[in-house]
């Protein structure tokens, strides 16, 4: 038998690769968010679905329009735009006019990612950039919470949902305060169990603590997120609020309430863990996490807003390059004394 030369490629080693790919990792996060998303839809109905879809459409269309032609398909296929759109959608109020959600998605990708040079180069979490933009531009719409109708009235959308573009929304008579708002402005607590299963008003996807945690555990097992991040954020929130609660239980919210209310879980598990905008090193991750936890408590307790997760993460995003610089490991064999 003769061996003829096959058409040999001369690719340099290593030839072996682990199996996880970046696009797969992004899709994993999407799967992890699915249960919480469905819970949001179950609770807030068709309107919530439309808000999420508008936000995703805003994100993907922007990515398509503003990417150079040869990079388009690769950028859409890496699923990161889809993830940004979904994450933004999940942190919007269910009765938000759809055109606002669309603009939010567009801004998230445009200002949050593309102007920095695309995936991997942005300093701030894109979906939070989108949300911060909406919060500043449409403060009323972004803080008007509507009660969920439950699955019985799935097809019943809010009056505000279909507001024509660039018009202000008019709301139904009934609005509902979020648990954090109730706590901050009326010193009224919400039963913990309602928080855990998500039977409260709030953003579409942030209410069901249980499902968010479930998705997080799945991701951690798939190594899709750095477990240190949620653990450090949640532990520090527990610790700081626990200390305050011990000081004055009447004035400050309890640690478990703090954990399950507002956007803390979705932020800690799905947004702070965005690899692009969080530190590279394990030590840096701990610092980042504790920083977020501390800022969340400071803003919630002492600031003017009931919720602070978004700003806490954005602030720590801006500190990431600095953290990376100072947590660089000691290179093996360097700085060892030799006689």
């Amino acid at each position, binding site marked *: 038998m003769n061996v003829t030369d096959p058409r040999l490629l*001369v690719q340099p080693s290593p030839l*072996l690769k682990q199996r996880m790919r970046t696009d797969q990792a992004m899709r994993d996060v999407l799967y992890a968010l699915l249960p919480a998303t469905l819970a949001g839809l179950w609770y807030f109905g068709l309107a919530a679905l439309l808000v999420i879809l508008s936000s995703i459409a805003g994100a993907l269309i922007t990515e398509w329009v503003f990417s150079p032609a040869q990079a388009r398909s690769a950028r859409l296929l890496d699923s990161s735009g889809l993830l940004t759109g979904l994450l933004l959608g999940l942190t919007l109020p269910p009765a938000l006019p759809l055109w606002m959600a669309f603009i939010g998605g567009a801004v998230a990708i445009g200002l949050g990612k593309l102007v920095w040079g695309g995936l991997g180069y942005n300093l701030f979490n894109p979906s939070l950039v989108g949300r911060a933009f909406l919060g500043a531009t449409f403060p009323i719409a972004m803080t008007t919470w509507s009660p969920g109708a439950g699955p019985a009235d799935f097809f019943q959308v809010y009056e505000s949902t279909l507001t024509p573009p660039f018009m202000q929304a008019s709301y139904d008579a009934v609005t509902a305060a979020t648990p954090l708002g109730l706590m901050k402005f009326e010193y009224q607590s919400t039963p913990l169990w309602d928080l855990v299963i998500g039977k409260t008003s709030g953003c579409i996807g942030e209410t069901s603590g249980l499902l968010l945690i479930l998705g997080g555990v799945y991701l951690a097992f798939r190594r899709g997120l750095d477990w240190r991040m949620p653990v450090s954020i949640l532990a520090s929130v527990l610790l700081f609020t626990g200390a305050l609660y011990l000081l004055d239980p009447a004035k400050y919210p309890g640690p478990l309430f703090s954990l399950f209310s507002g956007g803390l879980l979705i932020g800690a598990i799905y947004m702070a863990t965005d690899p692009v905008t969080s530190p*590279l090193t394990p030590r840096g991750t701990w610092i980042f996490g504790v920083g977020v936890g501390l800022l969340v408590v400071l803003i919630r307790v002492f600031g003017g807003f009931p919720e602070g997760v978004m700003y806490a993460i954005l602030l720590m995003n801006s500190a990431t390059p600095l953290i990376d610089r100072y947590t660089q490991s000691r290179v*093996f064999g360097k700085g060892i004394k030799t006689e």
Partner: protein
Amino acid sequence: MNALAALFKRGFSHGIHPDELKDQTHALPTQRMPFVERYTLPVHQHLGAPPRPVVAAGQRVQRGQLVAEPGAFVSTALHSPVTGWVRAIGPRRFPGGRYEQAIEIEADRYASQRLRVESPPDWRSLSLEDFVSLVQHSGIVGLGGASLPAHVKYSLREGVKIKTLIANGAECEPYLTNDHRIMVEQPEALLRGIEILHTLLGAEESIIGIELNKPDAIETLRAHIRSDQPIRVVPLRVKYPQGDSKMMIKSILDVEVPAGLHAADLGIIMNNVSTVAAIADYFASGMPYIDRMVTVSGPGIEYPANLVVPLGTPVREVLRFCGGVREDTREVVMGGPMMGTPVASLDEPVIKSSSGLLAFTAEHIARPTEYPCIRCGRCVEACPYFLNPARLAKLARARLYDEMKAFQVMECVECGSCTYSCPSGIPIVQMIRTAKNTLWAKKSKAE
């Protein structure tokens, strides 16, 4: 119990766990590759200066006869693997695709190919200097990958006292099983080699480090060690790159060899088990380094094998002996899949450092789509030298090679753990290699 203890021992940090892929060959007894018609011996097969040819075209040579003598201290001898005639001396394609000086030998098919060499003197009567010079003339190089002529390590700097001798049997590269077979099949030779080195270097203790995935090697060697011998076998966690000398020293002795120093500066000598066995063979029969053990494997190979191959045998002949390669083979690698060198043509010969010949099909080497770095930190957590590969890759892409020095690029051992672990498919170590080569070239130009 020992295995358990080793599992919990600290060992080195970071690193990766690629599939071992050794099942195809780890239990296959070694076979001899038959002699073929033509041999190509690249003259320069190791670090340091090239040897000087001492034969001329047309000359008759015997198997084991010297054909090139050491060209400097950091250089070694080269011997004919076969009895026959020197046909040509000139530039030939070398593994890695470069053209280099080579000696071409045509085998005499009627010759017996029996080795007729002088026996070396009894090693017990040797001084360390004589030993060093004999090893240099045996042509043995470090067989763990770096290919430093073996004797160089034994000529100790003034004032250095050797405490520990380590025989490296980690064989952490996937697919490769040649060191494994040596430990299982030739434990006496290996232990004899350790005894020679141990005595002549004046070591206090000798250690054989073996990854836990080779329990038969661990048992065989333990059974062969006499109770009066200061030799012990240390099982090691299966983790890549356990066989890297500084990582192994960290795992076994919990000592961090400072950057810029060699293990010998701390009184530690490390050798690959094959190197040690080759030294034992040389002092037993006078057999110079002319045959090497090669693992032929990989998804493109019909009949994987562990082979003893005479140096200079064309890759094509070795593959033919193993039943050829699958039609869709797209890459043949010399060495391991993590650090080996791609073969550019099947006419390239087996050289002293060819521990493996691995054939990969198109499907196995398909380059996945490359995505931007998402700063996931997997490469950072993989790098056993605690470098920041993501950062280095970014700088390399911008060709900021001098800036890379500040990030300690020169400490990189090119183990490839970073590229292995990157989900975005970024060729990190490949870019680091280019950067390092550029920096070396610049440095040597400046000198």
